[in-house]
């Protein structure tokens, strides 16, 4: 049977018109210890209508000296710099070695300690807590048990979310799915930062594409997304990656006579000296890694195609820092948000 062309066109238009847009709730991460927002940072929160700030409250790490899990780098809140319209989401980074060392009998106590510490630091009610741990096969069981214990401790009014990596989305059966209400897919640092031939380890959509397929939409919990705004210089000495230098840009290095450009984002030191506080030697190499608005828009477009459908999705930018925001106008961030819808 022949189907008239106009019917196909009508069907196409109808589908286009009725496909529901996902409501995108933009957010930021705050990853510094002192939370005292600048005027620029507050302005971005206001203009972008940001309602959520994922604020790192503290890290949890295994202390070799005291042989216990301890909090580190507690947040120092300066509440008057935080707009009333923005809710803080306490975010806790837990190292894998914490779970590798922690006796199973101490998980309940650690969960209680973390919850108590969050409540003490928050100074105000909160309705979500996010846990950030790059769990492995060995640490999955204690990490998931910690989450379940925290849920009991925090009660039904507090949602739990957890950061998720690309490989965990691709292999949920092998890696497990954390017992949380939502996952935050960390869509960055997907390349091999230590490899000399890597072009940009922060955002590499060819690599990302390898982790996204038709099964991605079947991930069993709703997924939010975190996109990177940061940049850094990757320093190589004698072919080996030895250091990351934060916020370094190609423009910074292009102006320095002691360096010679060897590619669009690569430089070689031709005369030893200090660069951004680090002493660099002749023949050291620096690869600048950064993301541009168009890269993030392409990332948003890719994610939109593969992620599980949801009525509402949080889109968090990593991270809120006046220095980083100099490279991203309000308009460019808005365009990325629109692309995710």
């Amino acid at each position, binding site marked *: 049977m022949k189907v008239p062309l106009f019917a196909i066109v009508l069907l196409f238009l109808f589908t286009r018109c009725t496909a529901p847009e996902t409501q995108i709730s933009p957010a930021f991460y705050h990853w510094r*210890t002192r939370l005292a927002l600048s005027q620029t940072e507050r302005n971005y929160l206001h203009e972008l209508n940001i309602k959520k700030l994922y604020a790192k409250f503290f890290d949890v790490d295994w202390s070799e000296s005291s042989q216990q899990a301890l*909090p580190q780098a507690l947040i120092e809140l300066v509440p008057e710099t935080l707009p009333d319209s923005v809710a803080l989401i306490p975010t806790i980074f837990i190292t894998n070695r914490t779970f590798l060392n922690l006796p199973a009998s101490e998980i309940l106590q650690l969960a209680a300690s973390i919850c108590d510490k969050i409540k003490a630091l928050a100074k105000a009610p909160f309705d979500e807590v996010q846990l950030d741990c*790059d769990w492995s096969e060995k640490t999955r069981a204690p990490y998931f048990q910690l989450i379940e214990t925290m849920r009991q401790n925090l009660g039904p009014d507090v949602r739990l979310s957890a950061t998720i990596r690309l490989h965990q989305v691709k292999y949920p059966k092998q890696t497990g799915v954390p017992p949380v209400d939502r996952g935050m897919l960390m869509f960055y640092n997907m390349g091999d930062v230590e490899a000399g031939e890597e072009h940009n380890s922060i955002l590499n959509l060819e690599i990302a594409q390898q982790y996204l397929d038709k099964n991605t939409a079947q991930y069993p919990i709703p997924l939010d997304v975190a996109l990177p705004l940061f940049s850094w210089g990757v320093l190589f000495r004698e072919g080996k990656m030895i250091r990351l230098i934060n916020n370094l840009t190609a423009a910074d290095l292009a102006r320095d006579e002691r360096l010679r450009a060897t590619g669009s984002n690569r430089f070689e030191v031709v005369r030893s000296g200090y660069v951004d506080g680090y002493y660099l030697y002749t023949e050291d190499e620096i690869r600048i890694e950064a993301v541009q608005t168009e890269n993030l828009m392409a990332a948003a477009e890719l994610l939109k195609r593969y992620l599980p459908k949801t009525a509402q999705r949080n889109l968090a930018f990593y991270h809120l820092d006046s220095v980083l925001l100099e490279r991203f106008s309000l308009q460019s961030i808005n365009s990325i948000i629109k692309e995710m819808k």
Partner: protein
Amino acid sequence: MNIETIKLEIIGWLIKLEDQAILQKLIELKQATELSNYEGNLKPMSKEEMLARAETSNRDIEAGGVYTIEEVMEENWDV
């Protein structure tokens, strides 16, 4: 004056310095700088975690191995 000359001048001054209060302030400045570096490098990724550890080891060696940055940053669970 280039940075190497400035550093040598500071080292020369530091060797002769006996004032405990100034030394204490310098220690605080050192710790604040280390804190800043720690924050800058500890991003929520395992690879970065590993890199931060490497950075910590470097700083520990440079500092004479007295305290690691983790020990400096360590808190307790008291609320």
